[in-house]
């Protein structure tokens, strides 16, 4: 079930492409939530290019797996993934942040093909994902619902209301992923509002908790595989994957920097960011070749 070399290389390339897209969109649109966008890329790539049962040709297919980006401010990463997965032409992202665009800082499910829930106000996504998982059971459907939470988002009380209800209803068809990049707008999570011991808290709330490196594709894939096995069991606990990540991952001067929660990039920073991504990847292709590729 693990990744073979070819799969791993392909997914790594896709993750790199998405990171380049994020830099490009941020540069072109005047600003985006680039730090938390870059931290969640590997999670999204693995879901959209390997684990989600979806069909871009049938975005409203009733039996598709659902995905809710509860940390809606990572829209810049999410919409790039949707475009590269084929839900809509990549060129549509040229309108990002502009008047009347479907694409802004937070995803709009009524405007974006392939987006299952409008999110952005923190703490709203997981309850909706719980509703989708309950609805699947009610409708006798086997699709699964995936939800990505931000770690700072876990300050919101309603996140814990939702976690409690997911465990109460034994929603094994719900897979929650926490993008644990350890930074929020005002600083480190443990300085602003402590989350630790996060894994123990999630476990105490009735979830089967898996702790992984959120940039290690093999570890992530293995965690999703395990979640799938849990989902097939008739009874059990919902799975929560704590993905330990780095905010700004891939762009050296942004990594672990509070200042890059949201930011804009001028021509010079864009050049530096692209050079950093090129170096980090060992990818033989240059950014120029990949963009809009």
């Amino acid at each position, binding site marked *: 079930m693990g990744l073979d070399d070819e799969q791993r290389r392909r997914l790594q390339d896709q993750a790199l492409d998405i990171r380049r897209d994020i830099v490009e969109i941020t540069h072109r649109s005047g600003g985006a939530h680039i730090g938390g966008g870059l931290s969640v890329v590997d999670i999204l790539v693995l879901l959209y290019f390997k684990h989600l049962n979806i069909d871009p040709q049938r975005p409203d297919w009733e039996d598709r797996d659902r995905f809710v980006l509860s940390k809606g401010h990572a829209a810049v990463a999410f919409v790039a993934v949707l475009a590269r997965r084929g839900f809509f032409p990549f060129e549509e992202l040229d309108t990002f942040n502009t008047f009347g665009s479907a694409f802004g800082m937070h995803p709009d499910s009524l405007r974006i093909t392939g987006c299952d*829930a409008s999110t952005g106000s923190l703490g709203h996504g997981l309850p*909706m994902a719980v509703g989708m998982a309950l*609805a699947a059971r009610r409708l006798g459907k086997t699709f699964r619902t995936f939800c990505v939470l931000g770690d700072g988002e876990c300050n919101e009380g309603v996140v814990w209301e939702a976690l409690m209800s997911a465990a109460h209803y034994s929603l094994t068809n719900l897979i929650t992923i926490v993008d644990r990049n350890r930074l929020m707008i005002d600083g480190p999570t443990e300085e602003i509002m402590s989350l630790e011991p996060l894994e123990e808290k999630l476990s105490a709330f009735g979830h089967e908790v898996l702790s992984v490196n959120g940039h290690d594709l093999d570890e992530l894939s293995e965690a999703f595989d395990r979640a799938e096995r849990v989902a097939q069991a008739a009874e059990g606990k919902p799975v929560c994957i704590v993905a330990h990540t780095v905010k700004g991952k891939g762009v050296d001067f942004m990594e672990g920097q509070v200042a890059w929660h949201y930011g804009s990039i001028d021509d010079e920073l864009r050049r530096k960011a692209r050079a950093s991504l090129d170096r980090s990847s060992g990818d033989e292709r240059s950014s120029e070749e990949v963009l809009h590729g």
Partner: protein
Amino acid sequence: MGDGTGTTWTCYDAATMTAREIYGHVLAELSDADPRIVGLTADLAKSTAIAIYERRHPDRFFNMGIAEQNLMGVAAGMAKTGLIPFASTFAAFASMRAAEQVRTDIAYQNLPVKIIATHAGVSFGSAGTTHHCTEDLAIMRSFANMTVIVPADGTETANAVRAAVDIPGPVYIRIGRGFEPPFYDSEDYGFEVGRSHTVRDGSDVTIIACGIAVLQSAEAARLLQEHDGLSVRVLNMHTIKPIDREAVLNAVSDTRRILTVEEHNVLGGLGSAVSEVIVESGKGCAFQKLGIPDEYSPVGYPEDLYAHFHLEANGIADHVRSMLDLEFEEDEDWEDEV
């Protein structure tokens, strides 16, 4: 589907049941015919009478515990997946504790979640201001896509619940604690969302009311006819949004005096909605709002609170009398206008 065909509900039962109980029964019946319907609550299954639904459809009932924000978010997720969730809790929590979930998850995404908000206004009596809710109409009608209905009694609640199923977007139905006396003795008076029901016609004054104030306004109109010889029109404006503009404008031109009566703050609810129609029309009209005068409500039995706020027949009649001196003229002389 949702048109009520085949329901066995009869008005005979309405006389002995509360609006909440009627809601529970009607929802259970609608669910027999429509597999999309599910029921949710937040530890208020008994209090909101959705327990009646739970007994009939245990597999379609979801109690989310004392967690109203999660209740509304979960309902949104269910609706996004093709279900029609009816979410029941007290009005204070549906409209305020979970306001952002209702606005952002439900109304923004235009999802068919039907919110049944019980114990609205001051109907919770001795529970006091924490459990009273005199702000929900102002809040809910400011949410785009939201339909807002305030049934006059249990019979109208049945009509509203049936109609809500067929409305493609979100609906907020505001009901009381359930001890309110029935007003309608039949469901067949032509209930239509967005169209007020003319309870009584008249030419001197129009009372526009909703909820429990409908029965009291009708009684006030009878008193005014009997003792003062006044011809009072009474409109049951059960739908606050979209408001029945035509009925309001007809009242302006036919009676030139309008009093709104509601169990809600006079700011932002029925009175405000009606006044917007009047002002935007450019027509002159003597106009007053009767409701909770922008203050928090005291503890007391509901009937004492209604009397305190003049939301019963005598208080309403007195207000109408006080409006009689407010005259309007057809001429261009503004000096002698109100």
